[in-house]
């Protein structure tokens, strides 16, 4: 049993390249993701979240670190485990919880559900629930940028288990050959649904150990340290914007919750969760701020304001109407309707 700390070279350290303003944003973002996801879980237990939901508790540094490095116009492609990435791009908590709770104020007014969060205005180009499907799609968005000379980057998030499906391979090769401005981010949380990734790969690292198959640099980082994530993202984005092609970044992390819904995650060896909780990204970052001399009351103010945002969002969602049924038959086609016949 080893956490990210043991398995990747250190590299954060005290270094003010990031600066206090950005650091506070990175902290706020992580706390926001933590609180919102925790709330989603509580609401699930209260039977107020319908369907399924996949939380990123414990993985917040990745979503926050990448989103903070992205600029307006950059595009995110997420999985069913996409709440955190959606929120990190600035989508209001209410919109996300509303969708999980199947309310009319939801991001897609209940039509998509928790696995398909999409907010084009925030650059969130969709959350995809078929493993691997969005990697080629992200390539396509990057191809458009390359074709048009646009400078945006497409960032595609996925899990360790996703590295074994065909679409992963096709996308990586395609992106590398066409030198597309796309960044592939593997969040290695050690598990697929319930099966440990190490049981189904013949190499130690599912993504990093495959980068060379696509002529790419091996990048393996501590995904629980937002500074490291942020710096790595910036480097990859610069490379992409410079026309030097894609990157594949493996971030070591751990999900504190089960795979989905109320999964108790009994398949994890005893003590593993506790070990990883010692390296909880939110705690790591709070300590970091303190090392940089950020005062406790500044931190407390952030914590409180985030809490209030999530509380308010929760109340708004509880008060929101269910989705109106007249949207069932809208937006199948671009004309707004669903007519397959005349």
């Amino acid at each position, binding site marked *: 049993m080893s956490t990210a700390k043991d398995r990747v070279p250190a590299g954060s350290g005290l270094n003010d390249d990031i600066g206090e303003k950005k650091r506070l944003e990175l902290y706020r973002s992580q706390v926001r993701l933590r609180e919102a996801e925790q709330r989603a879980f509580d609401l699930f237990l209260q039977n107020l979240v*319908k*369907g*399924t939901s996949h939380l990123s508790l414990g993985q917040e540094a990745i979503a926050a670190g990448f989103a903070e490095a992205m600029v307006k116009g950059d595009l995110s492609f997420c999985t069913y485990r996409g709440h955190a990435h959606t929120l990190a791009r600035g989508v209001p908590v209410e919109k996300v919880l509303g969708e999980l709770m*199947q309310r009319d104020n939801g991001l897609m007014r*209940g*039509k*998509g*559900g*928790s*696995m*398909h969060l999409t907010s084009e205005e925030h650059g969130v180009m969709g959350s*995809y*629930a*078929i*493993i*691997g*499907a969005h990697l080629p799609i992200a390539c396509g968005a990057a191809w458009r940028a390359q074709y048009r000379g646009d400078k945006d980057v497409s960032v595609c998030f996925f899990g360790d*288990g*996703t590295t*074994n*499906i*065909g*679409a992963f391979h096709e996308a990586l090769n395609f992106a590398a050959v066409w030198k597309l401005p796309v960044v592939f981010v593997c969040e290695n949380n050690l598990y*697929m*649904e*319930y*099966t440990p990734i190490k*049981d*189904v*790969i013949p190499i130690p690292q599912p993504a990093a150990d495959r980068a060379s198959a696509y002529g790419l640099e091996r990048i393996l980082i501590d995904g629980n340290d937002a500074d490291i994530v942020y710096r790595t993202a910036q480097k990859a984005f610069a490379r992409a914007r410079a026309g030097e092609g894609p990157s594949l970044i493996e971030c070591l992390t751990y999900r504190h919750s089960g795979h989905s819904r109320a999964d108790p995650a009994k*398949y994890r060896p005893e003590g593993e969760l506790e070990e990883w909780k010692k390296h909880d990204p939110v705690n790591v970052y709070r300590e970091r701020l303190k090392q940089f001399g950020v005062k406790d009351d500044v931190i407390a103010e952030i914590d409180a304001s985030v809490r209030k945002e999530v509380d308010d969002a929760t109340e708004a969602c509880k008060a929101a109407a*269910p*989705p109106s*049924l007249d*949207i*069932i*038959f809208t937006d*199948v086609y671009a004309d707004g309707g*669903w007519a*397959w016949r005349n």
Partner: protein
Amino acid sequence: MAEISYRDAVTRGIAQEMSRDPDVVFLGEDVAKPGGCFKATVGLYEQFGGVRVRDTPISEQAILGAAMGAAMTGLKPIAEIMFSDFIAVCFDYIANEFPKSRYMSNGQTKCPLVVRTANGAGSRFGAQHSQSVENWCMMIPGLKVVAPSSPIDVIGLMAAAVRDPDPVIFFEHKSLYNSKGEVPDGEIVDTLGTAKILRAGKDCTIVALALMVPRALEAAERLRIDYGIDCEVVDVRSLVPLDTKTILGSVAKTHRLFTVEENPRLCGWGAEIVSIVADEAFYDLDGPPVRITTPHIPLPAADIMEDIVLPTPQRIVDTIRRSLGS
């Protein structure tokens, strides 16, 4: 005799066949140690061991390809595709490999395998995890396609599928896993290609499948009570082979046909059955054969929307009543 759930029937059906035949092996994602994402295979790993019950990577093409290669060379694999929607990522095996190799080799190769998969809506999972896709398989020559609606049928048809020398796609309905039914003790073996008349009637024939079967039965009961309409309800159970005898026989008696299917409208199995009846029993029909389907749209996630788009007992009642002019 005992009452068991549809979910437990899956486990029991597989266990029955694995106990009987050491060539039966089982593979899929999270099926072994975790017992499956729907908990429909809990205990098989413990009972039969990790050599026969195996967890795989997330590699649906490898899963089905491996099942095929093993089947061609002597085993009888059961492969799980977690959600039937994911058949799309390994469709080459379903469409081009399993069903064609025997024919192309002029009878040299065999492919005795079962693909079992969780099909259908009702769990508020949204458009990529809720589809009914049995027509994706029915339309492919060379496959057999089964979709049981009750625990006893699950066991019996699973046994028949595993023992069948051809590739069988076995659709379990997600929303039936919790449903229960009486099941006799001992071995249960059913026959592919046989529909069941679950309720005899004289005014019209309702043909249904899987989750639509209990709904058709409920509608029939309401039609009797509220409108005095006496429906015959046929559970197709097996789309290929298709028991056209039972269906045509029923229509010959009732003179009216309604199909109730969860497939989106276009090119579902309802269209196939309506076409067969319209062609072969045209003069038996006293009125138009009518399909009751999910509309031709992706499935919405929200419960109140999902509940509306699937055929409901109420919609079945209304459609039949209106069509019969009562």
